[in-house]
C-alpha cells in the first residue's frame, strides 16, 4: 500500500465529507472542515518559514547584514497583537506596511487603472467599421448614463432620471454577465472535484 494510494483515499473521503454538507451539517463535514483549516494554516506557516523568513531574513542576518534587524523587529511587533497591554506596538508595523503599499502602488495604480483606461475609452465614434463604431456608441452611452446613475447631487428627475435608468440597465447587464461567469467558475470547481473522484480515485473515467 503506497503513500499515494493512502493519500488518494484520504482525499476522496474528505471530498465526500465536504459534499455531505449539501445534505445537512454533520460530523464528517466538521472533521473535514477542521482538517482543511488546520492543514492550510500549518502548510502556509512552514512554506512562509522556508520561502520567506529563511532566505529573506535569516540568511542575510547570518551573513552579517545587520540592517535586516529592522524588518525583523517590525515582524516581531506584529505578534504584539496577541498581548492586549502592548497591542499598540503592532500599529507601527501596520502603518509601515500600509504606508509603503500606498506609496509604492499609487503611481502605478493610477497609470494602469485610470490614465490607461480613460485613454482607451477615448476614440472617434466613426472608425470606418460599422461594428467598431457601434461599440464606441454603446461604450459612450454606457459610460455617461452609468455616471448619471451614481450622481446623487441632484434629484433624478427629467433627463437625469432617463439617463439614470438607462445607466441602471447597463449595470444590470454587467451584473448578469458577471453572474454567468461566476456560475461557470463554480461549476468548474464541481467538475474538478467530480473528475478527481471518477478519474483519480475510482478510476471509472479515463
Amino acid at each position, binding site marked *: 500500500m503506497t503513500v499515494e494510494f493512502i493519500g488518494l483515499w484520504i482525499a476522496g473521503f474528505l471530498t465526500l465529507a465536504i459534499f455531505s454538507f*449539501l*445534505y445537512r451539517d454533520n460530523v464528517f463535514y466538521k472533521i473535514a472542515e477542521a482538517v482543511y483549516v488546520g492543514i492550510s494554516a500549518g*502548510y*502556509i506557516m512552514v*512554506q*512562509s518559514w522556508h*520561502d*520567506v523568513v529563511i532566505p*529573506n531574513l535569516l540568511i542575510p542576518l547570518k551573513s552579517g547584514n545587520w540592517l535586516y534587524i529592522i524588518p525583523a523587529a517590525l515582524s516581531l511587533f506584529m505578534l504584539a497583537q496577541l498581548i492586549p497591554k502592548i497591542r499598540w506596538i503592532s500599529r507601527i508595523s501596520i502603518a509601515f506596511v500600509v504606508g509603503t503599499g500606498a506609496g*509604492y*502602488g499609487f503611481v*502605478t*495604480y493610477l*497609470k*494602469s*487603472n485610470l490614465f*490607461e*483606461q480613460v*485613454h*482607451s*475609452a477615448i476614440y472617434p465614434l466613426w472608425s470606418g467599421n460599422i461594428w467598431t463604431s457601434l461599440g464606441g456608441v454603446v461604450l459612450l452611452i454606457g459610460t455617461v448614463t452609468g455616471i448619471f446613475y451614481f450622481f446623487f447631487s441632484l434629484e433624478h428627475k427629467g433627463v437625469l432620471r432617463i439617463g439614470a435608468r438607462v445607466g441602471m440597465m447597463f449595470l444590470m447587464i*454587467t451584473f448578469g*454577465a*458577471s453572474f454567468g*461567469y*461566476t*456560475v*461557470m*467558475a463554480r*461549476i*468548474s*470547481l*464541481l*467538475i*474538478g472535484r*467530480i*473528475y478527481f473522484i*471518477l478519474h483519480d480515485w475510482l478510476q*471509472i*473515467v479515463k
Partner: protein
Amino acid sequence: MKIKEFDRRIIFIFIALAVIIPLLLPLNIPIPVDKSMNNGVYRAYNLIDSLPSGSVILISFDFDPAAAPELLPMGQAMVAHAYSKDIGVITTALWPQGVRFAEEALLAHAHTYQKERWNDFVNLGYKAGGVVAIDNIVEDIKKTYPLDLYGKSTAEIPVLQPVNTNLEGVSLIITLSAGDPGVIGWVQIGRDRYGKKVIAGCTAVSAPAYRPYFNSGQLSGLLGGMAGAAEYEQLVNLPGTASSGMDAQSIAHLFIIIFIILGNIIYLVNRRKTVK
C-alpha cells in the same frame, strides 16, 4: 407552489447528475473557437504562435488548488504550444501552491516534445511579496532567483542565458491568476512600467473584471475560465481536461437556465395569486 418550501437539495441532485453523466458518457459537444482578434484566446494563441523558434516566455502560476480545474489546463496547453514551437519556458509562482502546478504543466508534454529541464524549461519556484516580487522579477530575474527550484544556480541555466535585466530576452509574460497577486500586478509592472506584452489566464469569476485591460490593449490576450482553457486546447489540437469538462459545463448551464426560468414563472404565478 411556494418557492420557500422547495427543497433545494433537489437542485443539488440535478446539478450533480448534470456533471457526472457527461463525464461518464461524453457527448462531445463541439467547442467552437472564434478566430477573430476580438477573442482574447485566439489573440493569445496567435501571439505565441508568431514567436520565432528560440524565443523565451515567462509563465507565472499565481493560483492554488481551488482554481486548478480552470487554470492548470491553460498552463498545460500553453506550455505544450511553446514546446511545439521550440520556445523556452520559464515559470515562476506568486502563490506558494502554484509551484507544483508549474511543475505539472512543464512535465505534462515534456517527453512528447523531447524537452529537457534547464535546456528548454526551468521552474524558478515561489517568490513572496506580490507586486514588489513582480517588480524584482522584471528588474533582475537572476538576482531575484539566485537558484531554481532544484537548487541549480540560475547563472548556469542554459534557457536563462538570453535573459537579462528588465526581462530583456523574454518575449512574453503570461500570468495564470486566481486573484491577487496576479493579473493586475503583472499589468502594472510588466506591461505599464516595463512595456512587456502580458497575456492573462484567469478564473471565470474574474474574467469580466479583466476585460477592460484587454480592450485597452494592456493585456495582449485573455483566457477566461474553463471555456477559455478548452478553446486553447482546441487551437493547439490537444484536447485535455478542460475540453472534456465542457460537456458537463454545458449541461449544468442548461439545467441552471431551466431552473431560473422555472423559478421566475413560479414567482410570477404566486405574485399574481397574492394580488388577486
